[in-house]
């Protein structure tokens, strides 16, 4: 009996050691520097509140931690969209002026691999900037650092919350440098093919309601016309 007990306790210790290694694994810590921070090209900065209650509309399966907003919004309970969120939000420029409307669809990805420190979400943005045109942003996002640095500490905290300053890029692809693919659809952006990076800045999180003070930024690179011509040659 004592050998069986010893085996079970050993197994529990082994599982705990495994998860501790995953949690503290330094190899899954990614550089928070945006690949676009060293570009010479112009950048568009689109900011939004990543708190559901601040958005125009946020909906999910209705049973998740983050409550849909507004309260009467249709929920995504069907099996094929149960792991998907939809958000419509006002986008602000770097001077906090309203510049457009963005709609974001996010779905949990089957490429998620906890062993490799990847909590992948496939997402797309549909953006309209009045007077400038429309954009489509395709990206896979990795929320592993967000989970490790904010969500898990919030659960460990006796007050079931987290407070601090956390900044991180969540874009993980499809670009080789961890950039999103951006396609222009109309107006000044017609025919545009470029890259973007989305990042989050969190200040407060509660286990009950999810993020309560968090903003997002979508940075899109605008290639210079002469660069495009040079690449064609």
């Amino acid at each position: 009996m004592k050998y069986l007990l010893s085996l079970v306790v050993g197994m529990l210790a082994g599982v705990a050691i495994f998860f501790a290694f995953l949690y503290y694994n330094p190899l899954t810590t990614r550089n928070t520097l945006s690949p676009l921070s060293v570009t010479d090209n112009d950048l568009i900065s689109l900011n939004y509140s990543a708190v559901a209650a601040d958005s125009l509309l946020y909906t999910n399966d209705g049973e998740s931690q983050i409550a849909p907003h507004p309260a009467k919004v249709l929920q995504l309970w069907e099996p094929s969209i149960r792991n998907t969120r939809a958000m419509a939000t006002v986008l602000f420029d770097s001077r906090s002026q309203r510049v457009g409307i963005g709609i974001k669809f996010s779905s949990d990805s089957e490429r998620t691999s906890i062993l490799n420190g990847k909590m992948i979400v496939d997402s797309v943005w549909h953006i309209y900037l009045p007077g400038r045109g429309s954009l489509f942003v395709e990206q896979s996002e990795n929320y592993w650092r967000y989970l490790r640095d904010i969500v898990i500490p919030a659960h460990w905290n006796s007050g079931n919350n987290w407070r601090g300053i956390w900044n991180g890029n969540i874009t993980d692809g499809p670009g080789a440098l961890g950039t999103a693919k951006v396609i222009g659809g109309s107006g000044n952006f017609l025919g545009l093919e470029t890259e973007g990076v989305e990042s989050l800045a969190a200040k407060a999180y509660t286990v009950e309601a999810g993020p309560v003070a968090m903003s997002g930024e979508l940075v899109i690179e605008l290639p210079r016309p002469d660069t495009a011509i040079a690449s064609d040659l």
Partner: protein
Amino acid sequence: MFRTFIAGILLGLAVAGAALYYVPAVDQFREHSLIVVQPNGGNSESFHINVPTDRILIGAPAQQNPLPTDLDWPSDEQFANLRSELFKIRNSKDAVVGLGSRLAASHPDSGDIIEWVLHLPARGSVYIAMRTNPSDTGQRIGEMLSGTREFAALRGPVSERWVANTSDSEDASSGRINLLTAFVSTKFEVEEVVE
């Protein structure tokens, strides 16, 4: 007993590693794709939206009946000619397979647009630009500008048509939006040209 404990630790490590490796963390539900293969090697697929039951959002300034009813849409002048809609998308068997956004806007600088983004979680997303003028039959034709994952290597036309419901039933929807895609692989097109 100490050896048993050590063996238990190793076993625990192995079990946890195997579980995380073999058990998928995310398993998206898949409806069967109902695709019709065309003689030219392309494929067509039809989707539809039952209105109003599949409509999630109508965002437009001065909208008398906003959806959701407690929606607080911005009244800025710059959004005056923008209409944003969100829908659930159904396949030809009437099963919900994804979500769609439709933006219709006009602006003197950036022109008139009608665009769709279809997001099918288990398959990928499609970005579509429609012509702003519908045909005499009420059909509107558009072109896929970009796609992700399963749709990444595809291009082709998309049509949109509003079909009013003529049923007298009280429970009947007011109509449906039909979306018909006809995509061809860009790789296939290139190979055809080379041959």
